[in-house]
């Protein structure tokens, strides 16, 4: 129990002013709090932990988190199949051969981008759409900001909570996949050939959580309904993706390989382009030609500086948008 003055303690067991239960055991009188208080620098962690806790309480979170490991499991299956091939045979990805670049990094690129594009996106919507919108709707910001908490503390806490929740889902399976590959390919120079893969992998796995968390905070802050915030983000995410792909298809119909940057001028594209650069891989896409049938075209990663700037720009824009909207009281100026 917290400290109290002797005079206050002497009032123990007196009737509660609320007139509820008169207990001989519990001290129902009001007492001040004179216990320890953490410094302000700890407050954002409280907000972050609350996001994490509330996400972990949702069954849908676990369902989507489990589902988001499907791309990794598929890669494990591929690795397992390739390990069954006779020694000396090519151990390239036996399924589609969907990449160019570092041999092992390809596996991780495939897993991370597949996860990020769909499963992680859904998970981000689940956890992030209501992160600030729910507080807006419930008028909880007034209560939270009436505590010794700045808008920046609140925002940093929300961002960190959302980022940590999503990073848990991207980094965890990626590391497990890394360990699996390490054991499978150890004798084939896994560490020798790509010694920095673990660093690249961690960097790449953190890109989708950074972009999703930042943008979702922006959308969430500007809405009072989590559903509307989620719908807006989903709209921007998919519309920008379709628009970029269409522009790429139309503008570079003759030579797809030349318009790689245009292909990545979207939220999903910026994430994928940055991940490709960090992992040092490109992709192969199928082009259908009437006379020749399907042909594979190799696409090098887009310009790193541009996609990184785009991804960071999106992230910063989301956070700034959220910062502009977070306020304890609505002020209507006449």
């Amino acid at each position, binding site marked *: 129990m917290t400290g109290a003055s002797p005079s206050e303690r002497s009032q123990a067991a007196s009737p*509660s002013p609320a007139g509820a239960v008169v207990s001989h055991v519990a001290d129902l009188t009001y007492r*001040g709090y004179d216990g320890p208080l953490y410094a302000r620098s700890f407050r954002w962690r409280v907000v972050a932990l609350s996001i994490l806790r509330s996400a972990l309480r949702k069954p849908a979170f676990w369902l989507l988190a489990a589902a988001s490991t499907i791309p990794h499991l598929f890669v494990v299956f591929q690795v397992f199949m390739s390990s069954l091939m006779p020694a000396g045979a090519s151990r390239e990805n036996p399924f589609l051969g969907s990449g160019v670049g570092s041999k092992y990094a390809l596996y991780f690129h495939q897993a991370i981008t597949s996860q990020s594009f769909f499963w992680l996106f859904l998970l981000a919507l689940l956890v992030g759409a209501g992160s600030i919108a729910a507080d807006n709707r419930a008028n909880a910001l007034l209560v939270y900001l009436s505590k010794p908490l700045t808008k920046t503390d609140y925002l940093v806490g929300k961002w960190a909570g959302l980022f940590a929740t999503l990073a848990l889902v991207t980094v965890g399976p990626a590391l497990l996949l890394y360990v699996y590959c390490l054991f499978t390919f150890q004798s084939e120079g896994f560490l020798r050939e790509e010694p920095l893969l673990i660093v690249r992998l961690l960097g790449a796995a953190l890109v989708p959580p950074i972009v999703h968390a930042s943008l979702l905070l922006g959308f969430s802050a500007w809405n009072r309904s989590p559903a509307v915030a989620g719908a807006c983000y989903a709209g921007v995410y998919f519309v920008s993706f379709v628009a970029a792909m269409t522009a790429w298809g139309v503008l570079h119909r003759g030579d797809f390989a030349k318009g790689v940057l245009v292909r990545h001028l979207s939220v999903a594209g910026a994430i994928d382009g940055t991940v490709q650069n960090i992992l040092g891989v490109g992709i192969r896409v199928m082009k259908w030609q009437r006379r020749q049938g399907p042909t594979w075209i190799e696409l090098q990663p887009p310009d790193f500086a541009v996609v990184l700037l785009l991804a960071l720009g999106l992230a910063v824009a989301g956070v700034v948008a959220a910062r502009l909207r977070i306020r304890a009281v609505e002020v209507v100026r006449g």
Partner: protein
Amino acid sequence: MSVASVHNLTVRYGTKTALSDLTLEFPDGCVGLLGPNGAGKSTLLKTLLGFLCPSSGSGSVLGLDIQSQGLEIRRRVGLMPEQDCHIPGDTAVSFVAYAGELAGMPSRRAMSRAHEVLEYCGLGEARYRNVETYSTGMKQRIKLAQAIVHGPKLLFLDEPTNGLDPAGRTEMLRLIQDVSHGKGVSVIVSSHLLHDVETTCDRVVVLARGRVVREGLVRELRELQGRQIEVELHLPTPAFAERAPVHGLEIVREAAGRYRLRAPDDLPDPARAVFLTAREVGAQVRSLQPAQRSLQDVFMEAIE
């Protein structure tokens, strides 16, 4: 000792002036902030908390400047806002503990303290229930619980009895009275319900159109100019009102057999004058007592 004060404070929303050149001191104890809708009560509270930036003037809360020490102020102050503020799906205990943690309490202490204050607010039995299932009265109590969880020295209560039924209102007023007397907590109650302020506060400030129009101790404000008496007759008797001036009594108000009479200072025995008047017009006096103004009278006079 004053817990909050403002000097020449002006707050504007664009071209609309919400508080105009306000100078005011809130002494410790329980102070009621009265005023009609739009008088500037909530604006004043939000300015004192550092949420709104004044156009001019200055202010302090517990000796801290409202413009530069907002965080320190909010560490020592609790706010019970007017509107609901609960996150759907939360239980009362987790909501209040979270509020405590935001105030800087270690999580275990915050949880233990949340149980304490919920018990104090009469929500002990319902603390694990989803807040969405709470009645309006319970929601008001949980707002009070989150405001006091970190042991503030000053409480701002914005319309604390909004939407409560008579029983719930009585309970809430009792809580406010309890917390504001002898617990080392000062309270500023913003309300437009005069009875609430009259019941809980020692002092009132009446705001209208962003200015202070009346302030003082409740008992002083209710005191009347000159000697006034309240007389109730068995039956309404118009002749009583006509005859009273003959005995030096002035009719102040008359309604359904009830008369408020003003007696001049040189009238030695106003009660005798009342009985004489009644006997002369054949009326029966049912009650006779010194008159008191209600806070409503004070309020109406102030804002008119």
